[in-house]
């Protein structure tokens, strides 16, 4: 899966360059996030603004990142959710679990 990883303002930004986050690529996303934490990542932001579609396995991969961060008292935030993607978080009540920012800029300053 296409992911661009950058350091910005002391945080690690993962920008997903995929229209879909589903069972075909969510396993890889989960691995990438978990590897970043293992390597000492403290503040991770996943930028989802290019993602038009997310399924339950995509939510699962992000939850894995969230739990990983909580265990290490590290930061884990999501940014740039499109309305339909956001509504999947709402339907599963996961919008209350994640730290969610409208866009990357706010996630970096927030």
């Amino acid at each position, binding site marked *: 899966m296409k992911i661009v990883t950058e350091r910005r303002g002391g945080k690690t930004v993962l920008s997903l360059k995929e229209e879909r986050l589903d069972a075909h690529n969510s396993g890889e996303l989960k691995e990438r996030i978990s590897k970043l934490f293992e390597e000492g990542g403290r503040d991770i932001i996943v930028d989802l603004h290019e993602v038009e579609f997310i399924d*339950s396995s995509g939510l699962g991969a992000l939850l894995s990142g969230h739990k990983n961060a909580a265990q290490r008292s590290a930061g884990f935030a999501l940014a740039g959710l499109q309305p*339909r993607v956001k509504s*999947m978080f709402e339907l599963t009540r996961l919008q209350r679990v994640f730290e969610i920012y409208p866009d990357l800029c706010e996630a970096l300053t927030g």
Partner: protein
Amino acid sequence: MAPSPENILNLDIQVPNQTRYLRLVGNIAQLVAKEIEAVAGDRDALAYHLNLVLTEAVTNAIQYGSGSHAEGKIRIFLSYENSDLCVRVYDHGAGFDLESVSAPDDAALSERGRGLFFIRSLMDTVEYRKTECGNVLEMKKRVA
């Protein structure tokens, strides 16, 4: 309204049981939803929902349903007739008891178990049964 042949769509699709075909199947469902005449509500929402439901059901068929009869293929049936959408996804695994699958526990933050939750939330009826062509998950929704 009486059923009219103008409103009848049928798709019978077979794809390899690999996750890379989820996109194709989901996107086809999305195209069908966008073409449906009767959609009273939000056509784009239906398109997303149908894409999601198919994606979840086909993922399960790939992950749990690839028994000896599978021949490496997943069969999907999609029909629209007189405002009724019907989606069937076949699998050749051991099967399971749909009724015993409960909604995910919010507090537990489990990474799994939201596929059938989505399907049940977004469709009107969901059934799972054994047939001569394998197990089938049948999902229906009235879209008028």
